């Protein structure tokens, strides 16, 4: 039955994937059910909590609000694509060391929001971090250690650049 739906092609974490799904199926469900990438979570289903945040063509989106047809041809990055060859992304390292993750359910979305923030603004102020993460709800941490984690990741990025410059 699924073959009767038109094919939708998208690039997920660097791999080209084709799915045959109803065009209005949520990108969140395509990722979780069709591509078995369950790192992306559903928290509210209405774009409020940000747990399903992924990057679509470099933009942060709530994948529960994106119909599959809109993702045709798009490049998608999910939490599963953050670590490279088993090496944790600087944000993941910082979240681990600083206590940025507690129950972990908001963490994938939070990491994607933070990654996008650091891409467009490598040295955000605390106010910019607060604003950049305001669409992602965390009920465990009170956000404080998430902010610290982002600051640390930004600093480690700077250290790396300094090391390269030498």
């Amino acid at each position, binding site marked *: 039955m699924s073959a009767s739906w038109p094919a939708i092609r998208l690039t997920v974490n660097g791999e080209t994937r084709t799915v045959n799904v109803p065009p209005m199926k949520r990108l969140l469900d395509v990722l*979780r059910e069709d591509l078995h*990438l*369950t*790192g*992306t*979570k*559903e*928290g*509210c*289903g*209405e774009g*409020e*909590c940000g*747990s399903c945040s992924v990057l679509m063509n470099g933009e942060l989106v709530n994948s529960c609000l994106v119909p599959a047809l809109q993702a045709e041809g798009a490049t998608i990055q*999910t*939490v*599963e694509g*953050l*670590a490279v060859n088993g090496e*944790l992304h600087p944000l*993941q390292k910082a*979240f*681990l*060391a*600083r*206590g940025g*993750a*507690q*129950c*972990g*359910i*908001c*963490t*994938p979305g939070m*990491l994607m929001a933070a990654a996008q923030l650091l891409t467009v603004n490598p040295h955000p102020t605390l106010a910019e*971090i*607060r*604003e950049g*993460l*305001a669409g*992602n*709800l*965390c*009920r*465990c*941490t*009170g*956000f*404080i*250690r*998430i*902010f610290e984690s982002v600051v640390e990741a930004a600093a480690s990025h700077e250290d790396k650049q300094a090391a390269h410059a030498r």
Partner: protein
Amino acid sequence: MLCHNPFGDSGTRIMTTHATTRIVGDSVPRKEGVDKLLGRARYVDDIEREGMWHGATVRSTIPRGLIQTIAFDRRIDWTEFAVVTADDIPGQNHIQLIVADQPCLADGRVNHCDEAIVLLAHPDKRKVREAVDAVRIEYEPLPPVFTIEESERRNPVVWGADNLLKSFLLEKGNVDSAWAHAAHIVEGEYRTGAQEHLYIENNGVIAEWSEQNGVTVWGSLQCPFYVHKSLLAVFDLPEDKVRVIQTETGGAFGGKEDYPSVLAAHAALLAMKSGHPVKMVYDRIEDLAATTKRHPSRIGHRTALDENGKLLAMDIDLATDGGAYSTLSSTVLSRATLHSTGPYVCPNVRVRSHSWATNTVPYGAFRGFGAPQAIFAIERHMDEIASAIGIDPIELRRRNFLHDGDTTATEQVMREPVIMDRLLDRALAESDYHTRRAQFARDNRASPIKRGIGIAAFYHGSGFTGSGERYLNSLAGVDVTPEGKVRVLVSSTEFGQGTNTVLTQIAAESIGIPYDDVTMAPADTGIVPNSGPTVASRTSMVVGRLIERAGLQLVAILRDAAGLSEHFSREEFFAACERYRAIKGDVVSLCRYEPPPGIFWDDQKYRGEAYPAFAWSVHVAQVAVDTVTYTAEVEEFWAVQEVGRVLNPVLAGGQIEGGVAQGIGYALYEKVLLQNGHMANNQMTNYIMPTAEDVPPIHVFFEQIPFQHGGYGAKGIGELPHDGPAPAILNAIKDATGISFHAIPLLPEDLFAELAKQSPAEETATV
């Protein structure tokens, strides 16, 4: 190997370990942290079972009434579905908790909106949701009650003989003798609203059933053995035919203490009926409408003081709204009662407390468990007393604090050090309280933004109330696998607060091996012993102590039976384990709870050692009230606490910050709006919690006094930080505006209603 005495708690023990520990006290990384960060941790909705169906629930649309007919729309082919009603329950139709009054599925009558009546399962998740609307239920409505006051009038009676779910009377001295010679008598009434946990992962389970194996449930839950007990009764099965396995749990805060017993039974009934594994994961709308919330409360204080501001008598009338069934309301009421007098000495106390039934979803466990309500009332009331009798609120508290050797309202003697004065001094110093307060008083006159600063001082009892820990009789320990891993054997669960990390730290420390050599056994009732529920700020203190003892015991036994030397490397330890295994079999060390000496609680007289230990805290909140937009914002927050030994500073700090943020939400943002007993704002769009932009800087400070009967000196920590923010914030708003607010949540419309009454002259002066 079952521990008897050498490392028991019946004797006193000198704490020598804290200065020399290697792993305890260090911020080792979260045990399951890497899995969570990589997105590979498996929450229940991430799990599929072969041939799995999806379940859904048909719920009542009225708050109270008799079920007349259940009709199934003929346009749907119901043969594709499994359909379950109360008639399909093989055992008892109630959820085992404290009193067996809550049905698993409504049978003939409903007592609240969103009560489960019919269950459906189908292979297609979307189809089953659509089918819910095709089940029509007709009712004969009965008159409901929705408030404490309506329930108190007992007209109608909606629960038992008199609507009263539970009551307590706590008495010390003679309150009535104190009024005549009091210099001051101050009265006040305080109200708190319901609060939703808003864990980001909704409630969810997967259930399987077979004739041979009985029921197996995987789920997002706090207390595997609570669910186990409930399923035994619903299915009338022996203990070994029910197995409950916790999956990675995306937040709980008490919201997965009692409700999973309901949901697990529903999914398991569908699994039995369909012959397939059945997944039931609520969406946000259903979770908010159907699951438990924090109990609303109304607390009246009448207080007598002498001319020096010393407390003479406290007469407290405490009422909670329990919802339609008793669930945990009795124990929540007990904790509220035992926290209602605050951290103060008073010779004459009377607390009359009642929990009332109403026709709403049952209220349940939520971080603090009655204490946040009680502490909101007493700590707001202390500020009211201070202004009524003309004493500084800091000074009033200082004159009445409990100290070592004092007795509480239950006649419990404070045997451990009590350092409220030190905590208060530190909180005032760290927040620069006096300077800020004076500065705001000067600046406010010419500004539409009114700033203020307020405090709250409080304790939180660690562990189960009264005789609770004795009844739990927890068993926990460690074993060593043939693959060379030490496993912690507990039913205590991880849901973000750090159970995995802290318990493996303790095991590694007590055995003397690296942190990485210790892992958690799965929280599976088929594998681990019952170390009690993961609630009541008991895990680090009570279960942690059992693991500490079990680790020490394991080493002693290996020395005895397997030639382990006095000082050993990790290789020598695991070699000794293998020698032991060859001679005696499994390498296991279990320890059972032993109450600390001198702890006795009299259930009948409601008197004695209410808690084995208390954690203590002072909170300071700075607020800004915008008199143009009527918003109140917390600008900065300080939390100073004594929680015994801090086992992992990063995790402990995270507990405090997260609890404070939830407390800020409780005070200023989070309102459960009920219409006809149904939560009307059951979406994240209109139930508002603090976001990254709302949470202020939170400064956290620990004073450490190791508690000799807690795991490496730990006391409870998890609930404490939720107790103080609401009163500290409303006290700060009073400091800012001069207006005493007596109820939370305090929303902009509530601020508007009061601020608009203030003299317009002041406002025009600022234009």
